[in-house]
């Protein structure tokens, strides 16, 4: 089994640098997501690992082996492509068998392994169908079976679930996760869907302008983003502007705001707090921790959550997510309220 190491990988197209000196270690058997908006360099990074794109500088190692200059066919990777890349002239069996037949495995071995892979993705019985005759989810399964059939140590996936509808996507996320951990494969997974990255990954590398903005476990990067970009990219984030006056952080209206781990000592910045960490209460009611008075601007019922937007002053809006429950009293637009949160639920970011 094999780990993946990237060392100062850099790639430019003309004057545009799309990947800037990326380094990271991906452990054997780890599920790592490259998450970022389009143009952040995540697909180029994956293409360099696959060998379709040659790095300008830096190294790629699989285990201890330097593969930087190896052509894709010699890297022995499993791959799931965006839009699946199912060969239209081959039936499902021959699509799945492709990585084996190009390596000239004996016929009975090919049949055995294809059968196993088809069973694993629950596609048995579809062997003689063609790509066009399959639903999106079934095509996705073919692509997955084809990626694991040669029992690679490393699998690369490029937005594999982008074309599926939401329910199916969640189901496939679970299946991919289950299969990859059962087979102990190292997975590098490119996506722009933060929920998907949070659901599936052991660690997430959030990319911004060709750099890794932050690398960490899902909960870690969600709760403790190190920049405004990461905070915003991983779901809803409240970013309350603050100024330090006489060593105390003061927010809108001069309200003092406390932060449990305030190591930054920035003169100005933004206090980051997730909407679900915010409590909504009637004006004047005593509360714990930080609080700001405001007026409800809008209320949206999202099913499991009620999302309330509170205008704190002319510039600052706070978003508050309250879990739906039997005791929930729906807030109303125009109500005067106060929002509060604990000093342990927030930290200060530059910006």
């Amino acid at each position, binding site marked *: 089994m094999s780990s993946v190491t990237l060392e100062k990988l850099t790639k430019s197209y003309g004057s545009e640098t799309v990947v800037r000196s990326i380094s990271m270690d991906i452990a054997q058997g780890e599920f790592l997501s490259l998450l970022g908006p389009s143009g952040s360099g995540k697909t180029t990074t994956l293409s360099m690992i696959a*060998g*379709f794109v040659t790095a300008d500088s830096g190294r790629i190692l699989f285990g201890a082996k330097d593969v930087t200059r190896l052509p894709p066919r010699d890297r022995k990777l499993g791959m799931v*492509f965006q839009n699946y890349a199912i060969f239209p002239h081959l039936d499902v069996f021959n699509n799945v068998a492709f990585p084996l037949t190009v390596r000239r495995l004996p016929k009975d071995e090919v049949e055995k392994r294809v059968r196993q892979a088809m069973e694993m993705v629950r596609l048995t019985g579809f062997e003689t169908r063609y790509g066009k005759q399959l639903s999106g989810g079934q095509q996705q399964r073919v692509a997955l079976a084809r990626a694991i059939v040669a029992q690679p140590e490393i699998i690369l996936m490029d937005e594999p679930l982008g074309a599926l509808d939401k329910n199916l996507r969640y189901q496939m996320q679970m299946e991919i996760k289950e299969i990859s951990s059962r087979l102990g494969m190292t997975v590098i997974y490119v996506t722009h869907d933060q929920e998907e990255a949070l659901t599936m990954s052991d660690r997430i590398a959030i990319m911004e302008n060709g750099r890794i903005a932050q690398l960490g476990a899902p909960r870690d990067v969600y709760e403790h983003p190190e920049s405004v970009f990461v905070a915003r990219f991983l779901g809803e984030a409240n970013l309350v502007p603050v100024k330090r006056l006489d060593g105390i952080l003061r927010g809108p209206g001069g309200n003092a705001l406390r932060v449990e781990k305030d190591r930054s000592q920035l003169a100005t910045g933004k206090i980051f707090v997730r909407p679900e960490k915010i409590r909504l209460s009637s004006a004047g009611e005593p509360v714990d921790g930080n609080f700001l008075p405001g007026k409800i601007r809008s209320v949206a019922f999202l099913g499991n959550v009620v999302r309330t937007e509170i205008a704190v002053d002319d510039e600052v809006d706070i978003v508050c997510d309250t879990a739906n429950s039997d005791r929930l009293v729906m807030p109303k637009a125009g109500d005067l309220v106060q929002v509060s949160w604990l000093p342990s639920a927030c930290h200060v970011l530059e910006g």
Partner: protein
Amino acid sequence: MPLGRLSQWLLLAPALALLSALFLVPIVWFIAGSLASLGGASEIWGETQRTLGSTAIVKTILNTNVIALTVTLFALLLGYPMSFALSRLKGAAFTLVLVCIVLPYFTSIIVRTYAWMVLLGRRGIVNDMLLSLGLIDQPLALLYNRTGVIIGMTYVLLPYMVLTLYAAMKAVDMRLLQAAEGMGARPFEVFRRVFLPLTMHGVLAGCLIVFILAIGYFITPALMGGPSDMMMAMLIEREIELSQNWPAAALMTIVLLAITLALYSIYSRFNDQSGAEGF
């Protein structure tokens, strides 16, 4: 936009009327009239046996097919790599190559054929060059023989092959080739197992078009060929112009038409089938 049956026919009507008036009616009239001039069915049967039994005519039919097949083969061998290059080109380079392929079609085919005769003659540019380079001692016989016919016809018909193949190759999703490479296929395997099968319908269509055009060709073999390179179209012309043997010409026309239609029906059946498999 869904079309009613009636409006569909109305849209097709001008083309159908033109084809009927200028092609279908004359050819039926020509064949029926020629054969009727012989008398009854037994006379027509006798003439058929005599015509198709003649060694000269059988030889011409064979010749025609061999020449058309050879030309198709050369057009495919030259056209496939050309089309591939064309399908990879973009912008100005693409336009330039396309113009080079299509531009000769704006000049008369007779002019182009004479140009080849200037190039390929005993004292033509090709022989002069090879002689002065010392590659040959004697001028090569490139004209008024099979070689001349093949060169001339391949040249004229090559663009049909190239444009047909180009359309097929342009439709191939390049990500499939990359995917195949990522799955361990060497470049030749990518070609043999993915690119070639995905462009095979273009190969068949191109070969069919070139073969059908070649089998009825007249001007190029007439000008660049020798006495033994007689093709069916030339024979038909000769039967009418020289021998004024209209029934024989009509019978030859039927043979030519039958070969063409047979090939076309095989092709369209194949095309329907591959369509059902989801191409």
